[in-house]
């Protein structure tokens, strides 16, 4: 069997690997969304904008403070996380008691403001961000040329995803968090400061977006519009995985990346809608998502 779906198997491996790389971005971003939705019940439309802010913070650090990639990898998520804390404390907090839609509208508005502000300041062409020296070059795997940096992205995001899943599902802190989601009053009665925990959760969720932004900076142009292009797909991933499901977000992110990669070879014209077709099918068969629970 020299051909698979009309493609030589070697080329297919290459495309699947690329799909995995994109999938790890989806996983990292949808993980942040899932954490925020699961714990706060907020549909965070500002996620894409904060991903963009993460990439811009990395670029600003490099251009104005001389802080390189590795420094940015730590600092940028902290900055974005801090921005998230301020947003949660000053604005989002007021909306927990009302319908989800208000949170969605608020964060959508914030996303537009962030994008508009960066566009006004830096234009739309974007800024170049170099690949760090340590990760330059690539390896010829025989069936494809794999840039070292892309390999690093997969490893880094898988590590972060699994770490987050472990922290929430398998540690005491995670247990508190999950309990606070179910019944905040009771958890508060046990002497745990629930509001602070919720703020930190939001900060952590958007910090993940900031981290994804830094990881993306050397691959894409650092541009004010980079987040809005991605956020819709990431939302579809979260819906397919099941709103609020941590594991669902990770597995679906990677899976859809692979599927999209495959579509890019078989029928490239459809590669930007395949995710949404699947979303529609999943919503019809299993409205809560593949890994979601009915609430």
């Amino acid at each position: 069997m020299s051909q698979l779906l009309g493609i030589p198997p070697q080329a297919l491996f290459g495309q699947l690997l690329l799909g995995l790389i994109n999938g790890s971005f989806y996983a990292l971003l949808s993980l942040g969304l899932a954490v925020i939705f699961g714990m706060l019940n907020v549909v965070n439309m500002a996620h894409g904008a904060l991903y963009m802010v993460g990439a811009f913070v990395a670029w600003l650090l490099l251009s104005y403070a001389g802080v390189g990639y590795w420094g940015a990898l730590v600092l940028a998520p902290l900055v974005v996380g801090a921005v998230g804390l301020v947003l949660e404390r000053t604005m989002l907090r007021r909306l927990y008691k009302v319908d989800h839609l208000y949170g969605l509208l608020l964060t959508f508005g914030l996303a537009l403001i962030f994008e508009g502000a960066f566009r006004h300041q830096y234009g739309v062409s974007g800024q170049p961000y170099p690949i760090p020296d340590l990760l330059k070059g690539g390896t010829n795997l025989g069936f494809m040329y794999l840039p070292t940096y892309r390999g690093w992205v997969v490893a880094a995001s898988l590590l972060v995803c699994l770490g987050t899943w472990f922290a929430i599902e398998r540690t005491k802190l995670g247990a508190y968090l999950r309990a606070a989601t179910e019944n905040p009053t009771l958890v508060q009665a046990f002497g745990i400061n629930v509001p602070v925990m919720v703020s930190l959760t939001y900060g952590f969720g958007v910090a993940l977006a900031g981290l994804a932004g830094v990881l993306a900076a050397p691959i894409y142009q650092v541009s004010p519009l980079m987040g809005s292009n991605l956020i819709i797909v990431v939302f579809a991933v979260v819906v397919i995985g099941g709103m609020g499901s941590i594991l669902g977000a990770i597995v679906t992110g990677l899976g859809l990346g692979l599927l999209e990669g495959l579509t890019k070879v078989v029928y490239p014209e459809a590669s930007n809608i395949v995710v949404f077709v699947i979303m529609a099918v999943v919503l019809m068969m299993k409205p809560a998502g593949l890994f979601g629970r009915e609430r």
Partner: protein
Amino acid sequence: MNHYAVTAAVAACLFAQTLSQPVLAQSAAYSDGKIKIGVLTDLSGQLSDSTGQGSIAAAQMAVEDFGGSVNGTPVELIFADHQNKADVGASTARRWYDVDQVDAIIDVPNSAVALAVQQITKEKNRVAIFSSPASSDLTGKACTPNGIHWTYDTYALAHVTGEAVVASGLDSWYFLTSDYAFGHALERDTGAVVESQKGKVVGSVKMPANNADFSSFLLQAQASPAKVVALATAGADTQNAIKQAAEFGLGQSGKNIVALLLAISEVHALGLPATQGIMLTTPFYWDMSDETRAFSKRFFEKRKAMPTFYQAGVYGAVSHYLKAIKAAGTDAAPTVMKTMKETPVNDFMTKNGTVREDGRVLRDMYLFQVKTPAESKAPWDYYKLVRSIPAERAFRPLSESECPLVKKM
């Protein structure tokens, strides 16, 4: 005291107005006492760096250089964002013509918006000079007696790039094409040129527009035997494709990247390490002559960026329009259009250009290659000239025109 001052001021104004009445009456040939030019551009989307505020600045420079008035009638400049939506552009054009008494619309990046404005301009019998859109349909089947296509078009991009690159021995091509009308037209036209020059198109892939990750398509191109990987894309798509082509080492694997539409603002944003060696066609580069350098230096002081060929085109278009209404002594569209077509185009970037009966401006085009970081001696020192192509070889001959205005022999 104050009361008297106000009264005096009002009286002075009234007096001044009565004095100015006869002057207005004299220049009644210019409708409603002023010449109004509207810059319809992209102020927020993908094209806003290469056109946008820079286009407005270039138009302002042209008006200032002309002295701000024509035969004593003031020239007023207004602008609007069409948001890359044909309906927004069309309704702005209608409002400008009907309510705001705009005499001419300039710029209009985005072919879809331009085609809409072209029809409205004809309906309202005003003037539109398209300096930024690409589609050669504007002077083809969608041509009108009221529209001029100023700077470049898809036909010229395809022909200049196709011929010159094949002539340099790079005869097998692979297209990475944006999956919408613009990309399809560019691939079709360029492919036809490549094949007419005995070159070969070995493959192509249609990519969704506003895609972020091009690695999959780049690998497909890399696996092909083609010597040239041609990008029939625009804006952010071109940028991300170029950046990722560098990442995947397409250059090292012997592929030559040709960008069919690339502005210097995009090269600047990507940096030379990612863009070096790319071949591109453009009607203007800032560092070509003393005149282009002088204009570009002034532009740079305003915008902190060198002008793109679109923005340079806006300056030329506004200047030519003002010269024509001065010579014609009226801003009535039919007379002005006639004068513009009779007058040779001369400005810092154009030498003896002509406006053809179908509205096409004929000008020389240039094939450039992006310099390596070592070759670049200063900021914005980005291009080296490969060859220049005379106007009559760059643009579509009238014999091939689908424009109904062209009288076939």
